[in-house]
C-alpha cells in the first residue's frame, strides 16, 4: 500500500513538473470521456433504460398486421372483441385520442386528450405523483367527470401547485375535476396531456362504433406473467382470423397481431435507436483517438525518461515497479480527465436536452446519475490501461540498460519506439477516416433530402390551423361559414397573395388514409385500397404551386355548391389507370371527418383533374395515392389555412393570429395552434437528422483535429529524434527539399497504411448505417474518395509543418548535439 501511495505521490510530482504534457493530456481525456458520458447518457435515457412502469417488460402495444406486412391501429369494436375473447392478458386497454379546447389566461388552447378504458392505469401501473387514478364509479357511463393530468400540463396550468388536485378544468365546454397528477416520466401516448375516462364519450362518440376506423387510437396490454409474447401473438392470431371472416369488409387480410414493446413503440419502431447507436459509436472513436494521442505523448515522455528508468532498474527496481510507476501516472491523468469529463458531460447533457429534436422520446429522462458516474469511471479505467500500457511495456523492455552506456548516440535507436508510435498514428488515421466517411454519407443524405422536390413550393407560405370552438360551430354549415370568413379576412391582409384551405398540410405529420373504390373494378382481395383523403378549397393548387397535369382544378362554384368532383394525384392515376385518362371517371369515397354524423357514408365523385405528386407523409417517403375533394363536401372538424405571401411569411405570422382571433376570439391560436411558416414543416421533417448530423460533424471535426495532432506529434517527434541524422545528411549535401521529402515520405507511409485500413473498415461499417442514408449508397464512391483525399491532404499538411522545420536544422548544431 505504501509503495502504491509512493507511486501516486511520485506520479503527481512528475506530472506537475511537465505542465504542458499534463494539461494537454487531461484536456484530451476530459473531452473524450466527457462527450462519451454525455452521449451515452442520452442513449441510456432514451433507449437502454427500461420504462419506469411496474413490470414494464410485460407491457406491449398491440398492432394489427396485414398479410402484406402492413401495420394498423385497432378500432374500438375490434378492441371490444379482443377483450371478450382473449385469455392471455392481465390487462387490456383502449385509448381514444382527440384534442380538446382548454380556455386559459392567454386564450384558449387545444390539449391532447386521451380517453382511456378501464384497464389503462392497471396496465401502466406506476407511482402516481399526486392523488389517484380513476375509480370504478368514474369509469361507468354517467359517472362524475374527472381528469388525470400529466406533470407538464400541471406545471403549465397550475405552476406546480399542489392545489391542482381537486381543481376544476374546462375542456370543450365540460368541467372535469382533477383527481391525479402523473410523474414527469409518464408519457403514453406521447401526445397525451390529460387523461379522461372513456366512459365519458362511450355513448356519444360515433367513431367508437366504426370497425373500419384505424386512427387516433392505441391498444396496450399487459401480458400474463406465465405467457410469452409468441404465445400471446398466436392466441390473438386465432381471434383475428375469426374477426377477418366475420367482418371481411373491414378486416379481410388483417389476420395477424403484433405485440410491440412499449419502449420500441416509443422509439418509433426503432427509428431513433440506430441514430443514437451511431452517435455512441462516433464518440467511442473520439475517445479512442484521444487515448491514442495521449498514449503517443506518454511514449515520448517515457522515451525521454529512459535514462531515469535505467537508473531505477540498476538500483534494483523490478520491471513491475517501473510499469506500476508509469501506470500510476496514467491513472492520475485518467482520474483528472474523468472528473473534468464528468463536468463537461453534465454541461453537455443539458445542452443535448435543450437541442434535442422534438420527436426524441424520453428526453426528460436523460440525465447524469449513478449509472453515468459508473460509466465514466469505467471508461477512465479503460483509458488508464490504453494510455499507460504501451509506455509501461516499453519502459520495461529488456534493453533497459542501453541508455546507461556511455557514448551510444545512435541515429536510429528509436526505430522500434517510433514503429509503435507510427502504428498508433496509422490507427488514428483509420479511425478518423471511418468517422469522417460515416459523417460524409449522412451529410450527403441530408443535402439530398434538403434538395428533394416536395411537389409544391414551400417558400413564402404561412399557415394557421382553425379549430372552431364547440358547440357553436358543430353544425357542418356553421363550420364551413367560419372557414370562409377566416379565409376572406386573411385574403385582404397586406402582403397576402393567395389563400387556400386544406384539412391536412404536407409534411405536417397529419394525414389520413381512407378506402377508395373504383366502380367496375373487383375489390382488392387484400381489402387494402386506400388513398390520402384531402379536402381543399378551389385555390389550393394555385396557392401551393402544385401543377395540374390533366383536366382542371375545382372552380369556386363547385366548392360553394359542394359538387361531387375530385382531383387525384399522378400516383393514384397511374395505379388505377396506368395507360388511360382518369378524367371523367368516377370513384367511390367514404365520408371521413370524425366530427360528423355521416362518418363512413359512401359517396361517388367524378374526377375532373390530375395533379402532380406531393411528398405529403415525409420527404423520405415516396408519394402516396391521394384524392382531393372540395372541403364543403365533407366539412372537416378543423381546417388549415395556407397563405402565399409576397415577402417573409414569418412577418405575417402575428398578423394571422390577430386576424383569426378577430373573426372569433375563442379560436385557439397559441401553443400548438400557433401560426407558422410552411418552412417549419421542412425543418421539423429534418430536425432529427440535422441534430445527428450536427453532432456527428462536431465529433468528426474533433477526430480530424486529434488525428492531425497525432500525425504532427509523431512526425515532430521523429524529426527531433533524427535531428542529428538530418544534420549529417545536410553536411553530406542534402538540400532542404531533400530533407522535407525524407520526412514527409515517412509520414506518407504511415498515413497510407492508416487510410487503407480505414477504407477497408469503412466499407464494412457503413453498410450498417445503410437505412439511415437517403439518396446515397453506403459505399458511395464520391464520399469515400473525397473524404480520403481530404484526410490525406490534412495528414500531409500536418507532417509538412515539422518537415519544414527539419529542413531548417542547422547541420552544425545538430552534429554537436550529442
Amino acid at each position, binding site marked *: 500500500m505504501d509503495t502504491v501511495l509512493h507511486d501516486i505521490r511520485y506520479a503527481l510530482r512528475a506530472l506537475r513538473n511537465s505542465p504542458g504534457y499534463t494539461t494537454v493530456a487531461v484536456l484530451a481525456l476530459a473531452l473524450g470521456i466527457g462527450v462519451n458520458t454525455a452521449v451515452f447518457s442520452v442513449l441510456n435515457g432514451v433507449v437502454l433504460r427500461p420504462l419506469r412502469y411496474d413490470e414494464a417488460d410485460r407491457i406491449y402495444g398491440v398492432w394489427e398486421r396485414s398479410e402484406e406486412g402492413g401495420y394498423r391501429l385497432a378500432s374500438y369494436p375490434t378492441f371490444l372483441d379482443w377483450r371478450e375473447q382473449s385469455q392471455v392478458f392481465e390487462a387490456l386497454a383502449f385509448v381514444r385520442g382527440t384534442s380538446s379546447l382548454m380556455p386559459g389566461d392567454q386564450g384558449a388552447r387545444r390539449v391532447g386528450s386521451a380517453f382511456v378504458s378501464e384497464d389503462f392505469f392497471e396496465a401502466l401501473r406506476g407511482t402516481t405523483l399526486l392523488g389517484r387514478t380513476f375509480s370504478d364509479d368514474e369509469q361507468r357511463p354517467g359517472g362524475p367527470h374527472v381528469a388525470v393530468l400529466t406533470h407538464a400540463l400541471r406545471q403549465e396550468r397550475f405552476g406546480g401547485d399542489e392545489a391542482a388536485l381537486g381543481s376544476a378544468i374546462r375542456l370543450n365546454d365540460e368541467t372535469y375535476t382533477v383527481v391525479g397528477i402523473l410523474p414527469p416520466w409518464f408519457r403514453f401516448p406521447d401526445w397525451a396531456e390529460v387523461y379522461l375516462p372513456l366512459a365519458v364519450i362511450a355513448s356519444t362518440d360515433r367513431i367508437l362504433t366504426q370497425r373500419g376506423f384505424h386512427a387516433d387510437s392505441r391498444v396496450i396490454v399487459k401480458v400474463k406473467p406465465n405467457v410469452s409474447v409468441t404465445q400471446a401473438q398466436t392466441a390473438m392470431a386465432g381471434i383475428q382470423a375469426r374477426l377477418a371472416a366475420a367482418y371481411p369488409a373491414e378486416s379481410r387480410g388483417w389476420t395477424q397481431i403484433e405485440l410491440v414493446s412499449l419502449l420500441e413503440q416509443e422509439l418509433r419502431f426503432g427509428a431513433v435507436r440506430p441514430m443514437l447507436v451511431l452517435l455512441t459509436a462516433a464518440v467511442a472513436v473520439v475517445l479512442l483517438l484521444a487515448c491514442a494521442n495521449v498514449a503517443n505523448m506518454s511514449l515520448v515522455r517515457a522515451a525521454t525518461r529512459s535514462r531515469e528508468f535505467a537508473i531505477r532498474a540498476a538500483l534494483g527496481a523490478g520491471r513491475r515497479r517501473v510499469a506500476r510507476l508509469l501506470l500510476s501516472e496514467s491513472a492520475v491523468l485518467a482520474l483528472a480527465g474523468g472528473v473534468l469529463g464528468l463536468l463537461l458531460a453534465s454541461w453537455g447533457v443539458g445542452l443535448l436536452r435543450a437541442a434535442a429534436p422534438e420527436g426524441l422520446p424520453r428526453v426528460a429522462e436523460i440525465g447524469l446519475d449513478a449509472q453515468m458516474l459508473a460509466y465514466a469511471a469505467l471508461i477512465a479505467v479503460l483509458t488508464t490501461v490504453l494510455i499507460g500500457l504501451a509506455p509501461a511495456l516499453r519502459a520495461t523492455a529488456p534493453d533497459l540498460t542501453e541508455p546507461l552506456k556511455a557514448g551510444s548516440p545512435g*541515429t536510429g535507436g528509436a526505430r522500434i519506439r517510433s514503429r509503435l508510435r507510427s502504428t498508433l498514428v496509422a490507427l488514428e488515421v483509420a479511425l478518423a477516416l471511418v468517422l469522417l466517411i460515416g459523417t460524409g454519407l449522412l451529410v450527403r443524405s441530408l443535402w439530398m433530402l434538403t434538395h428533394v422536390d416536395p411537389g409544391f413550393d414551400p417558400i413564402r407560405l404561412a399557415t394557421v390551423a382553425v379549430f372552431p370552438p364547440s358547440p357553436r360551430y358543430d353544425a357542418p354549415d356553421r363550420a364551413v361559414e367560419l372557414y370562409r370568413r377566416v379565409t376572406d379576412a386573411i385574403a385582404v391582409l397586406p402582403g397576402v397573395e393567395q389563400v387556400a384551405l386544406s384539412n391536412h398540410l404536407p409534411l405536417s405529420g397529419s394525414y389520413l388514409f381512407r378506402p377508395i373504390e373504383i366502380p367496375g373494378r373487383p375489390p382488392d382481395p387484400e381489402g387494402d385500397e386506400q388513398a390520402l383523403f384531402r379536402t381543399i378549397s378551389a385555390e389550393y393548387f394555385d396557392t401551393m404551386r402544385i401543377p395540374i397535369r390533366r383536366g382542371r382544378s375545382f372552380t369556386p362554384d363547385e366548392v360553394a355548391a359542394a359538387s361531387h368532383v375530385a382531383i387525384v394525384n399522378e400516383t393514384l392515376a397511374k395505379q388505377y389507370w396506368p395507360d388511360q385518362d382518369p378524367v371523367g371517371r368516377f370513384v367511390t369515397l367514404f365520408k371521413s371527418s370524425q366530427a360528423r354524423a355521416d362518418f363512413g357514408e359512401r359517396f361517388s365523385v367524378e374526377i375532373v383533374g390530375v395533379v402532380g405528386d406531393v411528398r405529403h407523409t415525409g420527404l423520405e417517403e415516396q408519394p402516396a395515392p391521394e384524392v382531393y375533394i372540395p372541403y364543403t363536401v365533407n366539412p372537416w372538424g378543423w381546417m388549415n389555412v395556407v397563405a402565399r405571401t409576397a415577402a417573409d411569411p414569418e412577418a405575417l405570422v402575428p398578423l394571422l393570429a390577430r386576424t383569426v382571433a378577430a373573426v372569433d376570439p375563442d379560436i385557439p391560436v397559441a401553443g400548438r395552434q400557433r401560426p407558422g411558416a410552411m418552412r417549419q414543416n421542412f425543418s421539423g421533417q429534418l430536425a432529427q437528422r440535422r441534430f445527428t448530423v450536427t453532432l456527428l460533424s462536431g465529433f468528426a471535426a474533433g477526430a480530424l483535429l486529434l488525428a492531425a495532432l497525432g500525425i504532427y506529434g509523431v512526425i515532430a517527434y521523429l524529426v527531433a529524434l533524427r535531428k542529428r541524422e538530418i544534420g549529417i545528411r*545536410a553536411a553530406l*549535401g542534402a538540400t532542404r527539399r531533400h530533407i522535407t521529402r525524407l520526412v514527409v515520405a515517412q509520414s506518407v507511409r504511415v498515413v497510407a497504411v492508416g487510410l487503407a485500413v480505414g477504407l477497408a473498415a469503412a466499407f464494412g461499417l457503413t453498410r450498417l448505417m445503410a437505412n439511415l442514408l437517403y439518396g446515397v449508397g453506403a459505399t458511395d464512391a464520391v464520399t469515400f474518395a473525397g473524404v480520403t483525399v481530404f484526410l490525406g491532404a490534412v495528414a500531409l499538411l500536418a507532417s509538412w509543418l515539422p518537415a519544414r522545420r527539419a529542413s531548417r536544422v*542547422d547541420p*552544425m548544431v545538430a*552534429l554537436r548535439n550529442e
Partner: protein
Amino acid sequence: MSGGGPPRPEAQGPSPFLSLRNLEKSVSQGNGRLHILRQISLDIAPGEFVSIMGPSGAGKSTLLAVLGMLDGDWTGEYRFLEHDVHKMKPKDRVGLNKQHIGFVFQQYHLIDDLTVAENLDIPLSYRNVKPGEREALVADTLDRFGVVAKKDLYPRQLSGGQQQLVAVARALIHKPTLLLADEPTGNLHSSQGKEIMALFRELNAAGMTIVQVTHSDENAKYGQRVIQLRDGWILGAGG
C-alpha cells in the same frame, strides 16, 4: 602572426586554394554579442594539409564549418577557388559544398539504420548521380578502402576504427577537392587513430587538400602547418 594586424599579403607562388579575409562570427548573448571568430585571415594552398588546434571553445569547429560552407552566418571575405563565397546565395554555397567538400566527424556520424554500402551511397544520392554510376562508385570505394566484406553490415556491427574508415570513405566517394575533418581520431584507440592519420597522409600525398581540427600534437605532425586558435583569434601558424 598575431590577430588584429593588417591583412596578410597574398601568399607567394600558386594562387591559394582558399582564402579568408577579416572573417568575423558572433552570436547574440543576453544584451551583447559573443564573438566566436575574430578577424580571421588565412590562406590555404592547393594540396596543403593544415591542422587547426586550440583549447575547447576556441572556435576550431566553427572555423571548420565556415570553411565547409555549413555555416553562412559571418562577415568578412571568403574566396574558394575562383568563387567569392561571401557574395554567394545560400543555395549556391550548398552547390559549392556538394561539389568540392567532404566531411569527416569525430563521432563518425554514420546513419545507424543504413548498411555500410547505403551509408556510402548517401552523398551520391544528393548529387544527381545516376543509379548505375552510384552502384559502381560505391563498389569501387568499398574495394579501395578494403571494406567489401562489411558492405551489408550496420554501423553498430563495426569497431570504432572501421566506422571511421567508412566515414572517411563516405566523405571521399564523390571525389571532393577539400577534406575537412573534425577530430577524426577523437573517439579511437591510438592504433586505430594512427591508421586513419596514415590514410589522411596518403590522400594528401595524392593531392587532396585537408584541413583537420585536432587536440593531438602527434596528429598535427601529419600535416604541414598548424593554425592555433584561442578565443576566436588566430595566434600563430607553423609548419
